[in-house]
């Protein structure tokens, strides 16, 4: 999936928990310094935010009109 915000996207909008979390962590492991990834979800993943902060990642969230939270993550 291509998205204007990032080349690496986990579209977890129709996935049951804990798959969105697992997929995101898997993609983060492959992320090189300077690269970004984008997580798409219909909710704000507060438990994931906590893990991201603990692991030294930075994130920026935007809620778009259709109810998708676009979470851009980088280190």
């Amino acid at each position, binding site marked *: 999936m291509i998205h204007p915000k990032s080349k690496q996207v986990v579209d977890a*909008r129709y996935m049951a928990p804990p798959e969105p979390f697992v997929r995101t962590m898997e993609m983060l492991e492959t992320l090189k310094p300077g690269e970004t990834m984008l997580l798409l979800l219909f*909710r704000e993943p507060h*438990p994931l935010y906590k893990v991201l902060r603990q692991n030294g990642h930075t994130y920026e969230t935007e809620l778009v009109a259709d109810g998708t939270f676009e979470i851009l993550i980088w280190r």
Partner: protein
Amino acid sequence: MQALLSFDKSPPFAAPLRFFLTAPLFALAAGLLLLAEGADMFASRWSPGLLAATHLITIGFMLQVMLGALIQILPVVAGANLQHPLAVARWLHGGLSIGALLLASGFLFAQPALLSSGALLLGINIAAFLVVTGRALYSVPTTSPTIGGLKFALFGLAGAVALGVVLALALAQGWAVPRPALTDLHAAWALSGWAGILLAAMAYVVVPMFQLTPGYPARPSWWLPRVLLGLVLAWTLAALLEWPLAIALAQGLTALAGIAFAVLTLRLQAQRRRARADATYLYWQLGLYSTIFGLFLPLTATVWPALADWPGYSLLVGILLLVGGFMSFIVGMLYKIVPFLAWLHLQNACGGTAPNMNRLLSENAMQRQFMAHALAVALLLAAVVRPDWLALPAGAALVLANGWLLYNLMGAVGRYRRHLAEKVPA
């Protein structure tokens, strides 16, 4: 990866569980009361038995699960952490349970001391909960409609409880208050300002997550809690100024907003990607249709006030919104939350060898119990028209549905405890 799954510093299982297992007992008690009182309970909205049963369900069942679930999920849906969740849960659970029993007995036996003590105990406990939760919630920024909705809902709960305490004390002490107008206002704060806003805020998260539907569109999601709280404030002002036209308008617009939310949720459910209709889906379908009918009545009464004079009107609205609507949404969510929490805690304890959630609580067991609940809703509605024939069967169905709910939840907890004791791969 498994270690990372234990990411969530969630409260111990016992914190929410005590609420979830006590709630069915109160609904069961409401059913037993109906069996004891029979057709008399349907005589009017002011009958002592009906007031007792209503509060067994709204406080003993609904509020019990709502507040217990909030303690559990505030960190997950809002990133807000309560201080000492287990201690808060213990105090609140005791206060709510004893308070609901005192209040209901006060109504039933017309005992001023029971009414006053129940109302004060509830008021103090809920006020303390509001302080603790408010501090946690207002320390996080409003980054989603869910967090915004939760913040508004706390105001709604404060208003509902304040009016409830005043009404109970007025009844107990014989204060002269305009009881029908204040009772309508209390119900508006409780059902729209608190329960309705809370339901919407939670639905934004759980409907897409549990049923794999599209998300709620952002703009209406931000607006709905503001509109509902604004309308209940307008309703309050209109009641203070004794301006019936404005009260009717606020009531009609509240009903319209609720119907719009229910229709939107039905449309999202129609686009779900989970093909199987599970118990939660069935419960929400029943809840949404019931809510739409339940709100259609006050909407009609806005343009045709004579409808509200029919004695069965309040009873029908109450049964549709409380038993058909809110109880259905709540049980539907319990059936996801209890097996999920059991699984999560087992997963953390057993290092990733937890049994499948379906083995903790089978889909079949939940769907059969759903049929009993649907039967109870149908019989209660029919009993409004023929209480002499149907009050007792309706009471029996309510007892059956909630005894069965308790049996299902206890079964899941029992299997959880066995697995935990054995720590054997399933």
